[in-house]
């Protein structure tokens, strides 16, 4: 499957719209859409629940590891993973081959509700991702190579 090279403002708005509806229905705290490399495509909800960048990287790693586990027992993959904590929980659902929907929720909702609405949201997101990936690749985006060279040291110490 093609990777996502470019997310336009409209793409992110469509994804955010799906996530906002999903969070309202499921009463979850945070929803993050990531690719299987661990990159965040969009996020919505209470960002204080944790560093989304690190959650995304760990979720992608966890999903990838369990996919391998699934293969070893004859499954193609586990399409959903649920990790239960004392007060906060994480539910991860595969949207398509390259995208995962990560949901963080607490005691004010239930895994059943989250799972139900996550399936719906995943279907909407899958359609959005399909449109993004099959779009012609001419983005019009360009870096000026001189700007890269003149940037100096990339990382500030």
């Amino acid at each position: 499957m093609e990777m996502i090279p470019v997310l336009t403002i409209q793409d992110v708005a469509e994804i955010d719209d799906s996530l906002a509806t999903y969070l309202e229905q499921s009463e979850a705290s945070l929803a993050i859409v990531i690719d299987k490399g661990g990159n965040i495509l969009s996020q919505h909800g209470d960002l204080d629940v944790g560093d989304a960048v690190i959650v995304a990287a760990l979720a992608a790693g966890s999903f990838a590891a369990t996919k391998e586990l699934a293969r070893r027992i004859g499954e193609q993959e586990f399409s959903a993973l649920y990790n239960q904590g004392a007060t906060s929980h994480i539910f991860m659902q595969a949207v398509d081959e390259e995208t995962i929907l990560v949901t963080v929720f607490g005691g004010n909702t239930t895994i059943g509700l989250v799972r139900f609405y996550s399936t719906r949201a995943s279907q909407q997101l899958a359609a959005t991702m399909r449109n993004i990936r099959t779009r012609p690749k001419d983005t019009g985006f360009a870096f000026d190579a001189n700007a890269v060279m003149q940037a100096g040291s990339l990382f500030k110490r």
Partner: protein
Amino acid sequence: MAIINYSSREIQFKIVYYGPALCGKTSNLIYIHQQVNRENKGDLVSLATAADRTLFFDFLPLNAAAIQGFKARFQLYTVPGQVMYNATRQLVLRSTDGIVFVADSQWDKMEENVESFRNLQENLAKQNTSLDQIPYVLQYNKRDMDNVAPRHYLEYLFNNRRVRMPSFEAVATTGKGVFPALNTIGRILLYKLSSQNGLKNQTPAPARQPAPSLA
């Protein structure tokens, strides 16, 4: 593959530090995390054993200098170097934009270095890509040890492909060669993005339509 997000004005890159066990991949990230200022880094996450051997990966998110209004975000990963974790290395290599190959310069580690470099190429091939397509730099680490191979020998072993890549001598625990390697792979990725998308002075593409109201 790098992701360009017009909404947040960000470009995200994934860089993987690859190499044999105990060559200094994690030491690179530890030094980088210590040196980068607080506003431009996240937490360093290490999934390791009790003996501090990387079990799954290390992860460090960094923000780099903004270029043409776009923030460049780099996500640094290390792979576990031990031979038995090859399946895990394949997982971490997914969607990699750039690689820093870290070799242990000591003579008695040379066989492991060569095997790790070969393993990298095999794992990339399984993902239908190769070192011809993914930018990389070479870091010859542990130059402070007593019994190290000369640089030209390491170049002969690892930098003998059709296109020679930037290489750096390093002592990762003290920081020598760490930021030069990181800055170089970062610049290569940014430059590659400009070349790939046409080296013209174009303004970034606007949204295809005005963003719909979320109310």
